[in-house]
């Protein structure tokens, strides 16, 4: 899982996401009715439902929430991996720059050795 690199070489920090974006992103694929903008509409939408239908809906939602928990745990793991990868990329970047700097500093000496050999 290697992070996106910008042209200058350092990994790009992913754009920060709000909690609602993360939640809706996951929940949207599981149970769109439980997305934050849909929940307030529930009351009106189901005002005429029977107790059986209500119970069935509750069970559907509970299942969706469980599924969300599973997906969210997976999402956290992916983010974790991205952060680890980013750490490595950032270190590589400065390491590379330091090596370049050292090579530059050594160049005059190396060429002076070369000219005497």
């Amino acid at each position, binding site marked *: 899982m290697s992070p996106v690199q*910008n042209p200058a070489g350092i990994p790009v920090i992913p754009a920060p996401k709000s*909690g609602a974006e*993360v*939640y809706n992103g996951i929940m949207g694929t599981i149970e769109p009715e439980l997305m934050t903008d849909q929940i307030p509409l529930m009351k009106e939408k189901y005002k005429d439902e029977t107790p059986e239908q209500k119970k069935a809906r509750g069970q559907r939602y509970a299942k969706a929430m469980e599924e969300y928990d599973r997906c969210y745990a997976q999402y956290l793991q992916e983010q974790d991996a991205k952060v680890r990868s980013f750490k490595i990329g950032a270190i590589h*970047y400065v*390491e590379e720059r*330091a090596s370049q700097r050292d090579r530059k500093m050594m160049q005059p000496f190396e060429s002076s050795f070369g000219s005497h050999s």
Partner: protein
Amino acid sequence: MLFHSPFNFFRENRRVFVDKPGAMPEVTDTQKQKAAEVINALQETLKADPDAAGAIAEFKVEEADKDAKKFQEAYHTALKNAANAYYKSLAAEDDDQAKVEKINDLFKAAKAPVAFQLAGSELVIAPEAPEEKGEKGRVLSATEKQFIAEAFPKPKEAASAERVLKAMQKGSPQLKVAETVYKTFIDLPLAEKQAVLNNPQSRQKFLNALTPEGRQFMAQLSQDLEASSKELSEDELEEIEENARNFLKKKKFDVSKASEMEKNLMLAQLQMRGIDTSGGEEILKDPSKLKAFKGSPMERGFNQIMGLITLVLLYIQKMKDMFKPKEKKSPEAPAEDKNKKGSEALSPEKEAMRQKLKEQMKSKTGAVLLSERETKRTGIQNQIKTTNNLKGKTDDESKVAYEARKGELPQLTQEEAQLSQEIAMLQEMKKETETQKSTLTAGKDALVSYLKQPNAKAKIPNGDQIRENLEKVSFTLNDRYELCIRNITGDAVDPAVLNVLSGNVRIRSGITGIDHFAIDDQGVLKQPENLQTLFRQLLEGFRAEVKTDEPPHPAAAPAVASAPAGASPAAPASPKS
């Protein structure tokens, strides 16, 4: 390899969030676990009440928000670590400021979204607004800066130490003592300094060598540092308050139109967001009065957990309120029932019908009553249909028959309507009890699984015994469409089981309702938690549905249970009966 030694950490496989970022209110693992347990309980509630989805979603959004912030913080920390590694490789060159500029140039060229500044001996990410607002106190001397840099290698500690030292008055006796301590420390050889910082015995030796005032100063400094590092900064407090105001705005909450329940739900949600809600609904009327809850990290975490628990209790209360009109049948309740509005209240006619049916169910099962009425209604409907069919016919026989029957039509229609109402009422009574049964069963199951957890076993005296006995009971509908408690096999419940449960569980009332839940006298749980919630729900279920309606001894249950629930009526009523 230039970075060999500073980069050891990059081979580490540890989790990203070992340390909590300073901006987050620190919640302990136990508190987190409690919150998770409460959420699990709420998810159980969801099965019976889909309206609880809103609260759960909010919690999950909140959780995702916190995690997203932690990830951003982790990215910044990674950049900071890289910058510090580069900084150390520049050791032989330039002065400190020049090095910082060089690093900032390097990261700027790489389009990193941060800039760095020195704090002690380490680079930290510079705040976006370079000027620190409200900086109080005096300017620190070079010795003090050196002391901070050497004695507090961690940036957060260094920042806290700086705040504490800056607060000391110039020329004060306390500052003079402090200066002696700095000097003593700074003059130590490097190895000894390291030992003082890392080895408790060397630290004690260092402290013993100080004057009594010096020791007192160090003790005070440690105390101040601890308090200072745990306090929320002004920015953090403002952020919490701003988030809560935005939340209120987003919800378009109108306090003038909100019911008491809605106000309490909103207050609980604000409390979950770290707001001090002790002022009650005043903060809802005027959101500018919203203030973040101040206190130690544990107190702040507890305040949030309390908000969550209150929210859960309120949702359960809301759910129970939905059941109320059907439960309140006792003679002391009618005045309250009359005051109920809309669908919650039963009309006097319906109330009378319900009582009549309950009375009839003492001699016949609910199923029999339902079946009798359905059969009778079908007969009447057939009679009405037959009479109406005769109406259009032209033969003499039909005309005579219609004339003879038409006088019965109004009465038959009225009877049919009455029967339909009674059938609907019987079906409703059954469904209500079934819903209550599933709610209580879900609560019982969640409680049993909670009591199976190792931490619950350690915490709850007799937890295993309670769990074992809970596992022996089940909720069922009796033939009168009432909720009752039975053995798990459906037989009469063993009185000993109920004795264990009621002997181990007590509920105590406080100012805010039931605020203590006790298991045995020694095991008072001082904090409400999901266990309390579920037991409360469960026991209220026992009380409201079983103990008031059933004879005091559970052994009486089999008499009712023995009547076959699905038995058909002995003889179908004739259409004309």
